[in-house]
């Protein structure tokens, strides 16, 4: 335990004053007057107990009074305690400096970037005659300069001078793991120290846990955070709704964050392809707002864009722009296999066709478009293979050939929607799943309803709103959908001991209404509904419902995300159409191949793997044709520059009283230090030129105990109260 005083003179005066009660007691002790007394034996019996009681009382009162004065004196003298052994000048010190190089360290305050402060602070501790040090640049990945501790502090300092913020978020766990690995790698040190130079950004450090750091390691946080968080504006995220198809209007959601205490109206510019959209959203202090942008996408492919806050004057310009990629699919080709006419109004086929091709002229077919009607007898392989999804509605009893053909299509990856209306449909589904064998994971069988041909109208209950088609419908549309009346003639039964998989909606009696079964290749959708007899087809809800249900069956509809975080480990599957690895290249934002990214063959196909270091759009191409575009950006957690409270690291799990937090306050001092001047001043680390200033990471009066005077004042008051209590207890 190291003891120091903020004001040693007052402290020593206080300690000297602690003797005052003893002196006063001795000086004012009453001088007994001699009194010859006859009944002394009664006094002897009486005073024996009394004398002990009196002495105990006097000792207690005197002790408490002395402690009260002593506590007061120590409080005035600003006593500071620090755990651990007091440092010696010749102690061998193992010191690991973790330098936060996350993107928030690039934020500027009063003209100085956080990384500049951090470098100055780190440099002040990377020195010392008996110091063996390590330096770790901490981002999403921890990057130690050397794999072991080194006495070559000059080399570390040179690396430190080259440190730059990375467009990554900080992973403190990785940083601590790397620091512990360095500290535990070598033996023989008298002290082990971990110095973390960071801006203490709240989104990084609010769940700090130091339990993994060995108990004997002294931990110091050097905060570069300015007293007030810098004002920052940021594009937090860019997203879009569901599956995007060519020719459909895309709704982009651009989330803009105002991380300041002022109302801001930045100019938002969204560039998609060759078009630019502008908006000026009003942002309340410390708020986020999602700005919708309607974009028309005439062509399929990977549409690249960039959202930018134009002219934003904020502390961290890096997050004022964000790239994004929107994969635009061509319109799916859909074939409706049916016995019915698609133009006969009121039939199930009519409603299905109108829902899938709403632009088709009334009373006629949308010839030449993507939805076609195929009679079962005409359903040949060459016709159906060209389709993305086959819809079986009122197809009658499927022939064996057609059943095998449908199963083969599914096995090739095409989608199939079976609308169950009649007994033949249930039988056809049974034979189809039999043809698919173990590959389909439905777990359901359908049989004619116990009610026979009597139709009972029921309501829908959506079971899984997180999957298409209900995921694409809003909450309100799902609610409206549940209010429609549905007719069904099939009951669903469990197909085995396993619970049915892929059930998305049921009727009120528990019968499965909507399900999507996975086969490992294509998907099989089931719509258990007498279409023409239900009210839904007459509602506008039927178009988005059936459209989303069919699009959920389109091959590649649930492709991997086209966004990733910088610095994070990537594993993005490429489309199946890519085929083999031959000719594939991974290109960075600048169009040059990236060494950190690899294209590998996996068990499920080909995938892009590795770490993307720089933000921007990364591509995988073959002979100049982009097969995959990936927008790599820094996670939005780096946008909020607010910090954790200064005392938070001291109270986190595993802190155990060994954590100190120091804060650089004088920006000009930091700047001086950068120019070779004295090291920065510390908020509570004592006068400049102390151990810290010389790089000796010793035991200066620490911030960890600066608030001890409050406890001492409290203790003094408690001692006085205790003294009064003792006097009361002894009846004095």
């Amino acid at each position, binding site marked *: 335990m190291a003891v120091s005083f903020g004001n040693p003179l007052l402290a020593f005066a206080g300690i000297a004053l602690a003797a005052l009660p003893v002196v006063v007691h001795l000086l004012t002790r*009453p*001088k*007994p*007057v*001699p*009194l*010859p*007394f*006859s*009944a*002394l*034996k*009664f*006094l*002897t*019996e*009486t*005073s024996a*107990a*009394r*004398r002990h009681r*009196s002495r105990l009382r006097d000792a207690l009162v005197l002790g408490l009074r002395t402690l009260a004065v002593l506590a007061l004196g120590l409080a005035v003298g600003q006593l500071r305690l620090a755990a651990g052994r007091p440092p010696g000048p010749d102690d061998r010190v193992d010191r690991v400096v973790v330098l936060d190089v996350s993107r928030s360290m690039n934020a500027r305050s009063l003209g100085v970037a956080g990384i500049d402060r951090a470098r100055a602070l780190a440099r002040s501790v990377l020195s010392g005659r008996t110091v063996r040090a390590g330096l770790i640049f901490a981002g999403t990945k921890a990057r130690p300069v050397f794999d072991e501790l080194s006495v070559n502090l000059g080399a570390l300092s040179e690396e430190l001078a080259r440190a730059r913020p990375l467009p990554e978020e900080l992973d403190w766990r990785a940083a601590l793991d790397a620091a512990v690995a360095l500290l535990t790698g070598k033996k023989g040190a008298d002290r082990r120290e971990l110095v973390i130079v960071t801006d203490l950004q709240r989104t990084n450090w609010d769940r700090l846990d130091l339990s993994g750091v060995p108990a004997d390691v002294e931990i110091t946080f050097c905060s570069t955070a300015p007293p007030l968080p810098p004002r920052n504006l940021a594009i937090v995220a860019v997203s879009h709704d569901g599956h995007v198809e060519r020719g459909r209007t895309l709704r982009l959601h651009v989330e803009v964050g105002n991380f300041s205490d002022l109302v801001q109206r930045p100019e938002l510019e969204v560039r998609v392809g060759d078009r630019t959209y502008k908006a000026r959203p009003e942002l309340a202090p410390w708020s986020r707002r999602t700005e919708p942008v309607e974009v028309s996408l005439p062509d399929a492919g990977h549409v690249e864009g960039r959202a930018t806050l134009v002219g934003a004057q904020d502390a961290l310009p890096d997050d004022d722009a964000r790239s994004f990629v929107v994969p635009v699919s061509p319109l799916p080709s859909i074939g409706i296999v049916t016995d019915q006419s698609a133009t006969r109004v009121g039939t199930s086929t009519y409603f299905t066709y109108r829902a899938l091709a709403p632009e088709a002229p009334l009373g006629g077919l949308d010839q030449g478009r993507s939805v076609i009607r195929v009679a079962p007898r005409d359903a040949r392989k060459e016709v159906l293979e060209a389709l993305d999804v086959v819809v079986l509605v009122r197809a009658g009893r499927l022939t064996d050939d057609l059943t095998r053909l449908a199963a083969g299509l599914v096995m090739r990856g095409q989608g199939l929607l079976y609308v169950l209306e009649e007994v033949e449909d249930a039988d056809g589904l049974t034979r189809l799943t039999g043809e698919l064998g173990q590959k389909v994971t439905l777990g359901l069988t359908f049989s004619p309803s116990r009610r026979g041909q009597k139709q009972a109208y029921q309501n829908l209950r959506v079971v899984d709103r997180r999957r298409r088609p209900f995921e694409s419908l809003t909450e309100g549309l799902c609610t409206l959908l549940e209010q429609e009346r549905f007719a069904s003639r099939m009951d669903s039964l469990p197909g085995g001991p396993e619970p049915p998989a892929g059930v998305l909606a049921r009727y009120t009696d528990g019968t499965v209404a909507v399900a999507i079964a996975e086969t490992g290749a294509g998907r099989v959708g089931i719509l258990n509904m007498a279409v023409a007899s239900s009210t839904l087809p007459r509602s506008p809800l039927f178009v988005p419902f059936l459209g989303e249900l069919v699009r959920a069956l389109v091959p590649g509809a649930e492709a991997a995300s086209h966004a990733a975080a910088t610095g994070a480990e990537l594993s993005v599957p490429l489309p199946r159409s890519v085929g083999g690895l031959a000719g594939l290249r991974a290109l960075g934002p600048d169009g040059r191949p990236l060494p950190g990214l690899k294209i590998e063959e996996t068990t499920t196909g080909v995938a892009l793997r590795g770490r993307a270091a720089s933000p921007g759009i990364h591509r995988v191409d073959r002979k100049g044709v982009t097969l995959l575009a990936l927008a790599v950006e820094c996670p939005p957690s780096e946008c909020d520059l607010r910090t954790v409270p200064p005392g938070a690291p001291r109270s986190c799990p595993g802190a155990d009283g060994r954590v100190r937090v120091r804060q650089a306050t004088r920006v000009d001092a930091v700047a001086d230090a950068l120019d070779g001047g004295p090291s920065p001043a510390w908020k509570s680390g004592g006068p400049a030129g102390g151990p810290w200033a010389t790089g000796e990471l010793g035991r200066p009066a620490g911030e960890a105990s600066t608030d001890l005077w409050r406890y001492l004042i409290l203790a003094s008051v408690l001692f006085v109260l205790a003294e009064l209590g003792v006097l009361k207890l002894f009846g004095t």
Partner: protein
Amino acid sequence: MTATHASRFLDLETVARLARLRFGTRYAVEAAYPGRHASHRPGGSLEFADFRPYTPGEDLRKLDWKVMARLGRAYVRTYQEDTQLLCTIALDSSGSMAFPCHLGPGALSKLDYARYLAASLAYVIDRGGDQVGLAVLGDRLVDCLPPAAAPTQLQSFLRMLEETPRPDASPTRLRAGLLALLPLLPTRGVLVVVGDFLDDDLEGVFGALRLFRHRHFEVLLLHLVHPQEEHLPEGRCYRFQGLEGEGEIVGTPAEIAAAYERRFAGFLATVKTLAVATGCDYRRLSTATSTLRSLETLLVERSR
């Protein structure tokens, strides 16, 4: 009172006030000379004692003829003999009787008070035609003047009082003094013990007094208590010094007074209880009250 009686313990004013007081006894006494006190010995006084069967050869004048006529048997009437009172005043002169000696030479100590009281009581007894003696007790029987009918007895008594030595630091051992006194006194007398009874062996003291009671002595205990013994003097801090060599104790009255007074009151109660149990007449006298007034109160109460 003659000039020969002159003593600092018995001035003329006191003598004048004592003239109307009498010292009586509640029990039969026995002495060689007739007096005014009833005796167990049959005698010729008018005080009827009892009947007893007639023994041939007795004086027929003592035969109760009326009883013989009524009962047919001869009974003799017996009468008490009036005799003198033999009173011995035992004076405790132990160290504790010097209290309070801290108030200076003019202050009245318990021993002085006892001597004034003894002188006055002796005068009253002597004036009643009885015999009075003096025993000075300390850690032993210091001095003894047995009761006598000599005309100079009172003078000797007063002289002995005058010559009683100032108390030294000797401890109180009343038992030893009383046991030494017992064989020196005749039976059926009166023993007046004047002292503070601050004796470590109270049981022994009252054991000795029981011997006196066994010998048909009437025992009167005059327990002297100084006000500062009952209530400790006020003050900040005292070094209490024992008068009988017990050492000293430093203490503040405010802290120890309550417990001390409880113990002292217990002591007083114990003495009284033992006295009553022994069959002694017990009087507690405060030295704050004048000796004359205390004596008047004592004698008036005893005469009832």
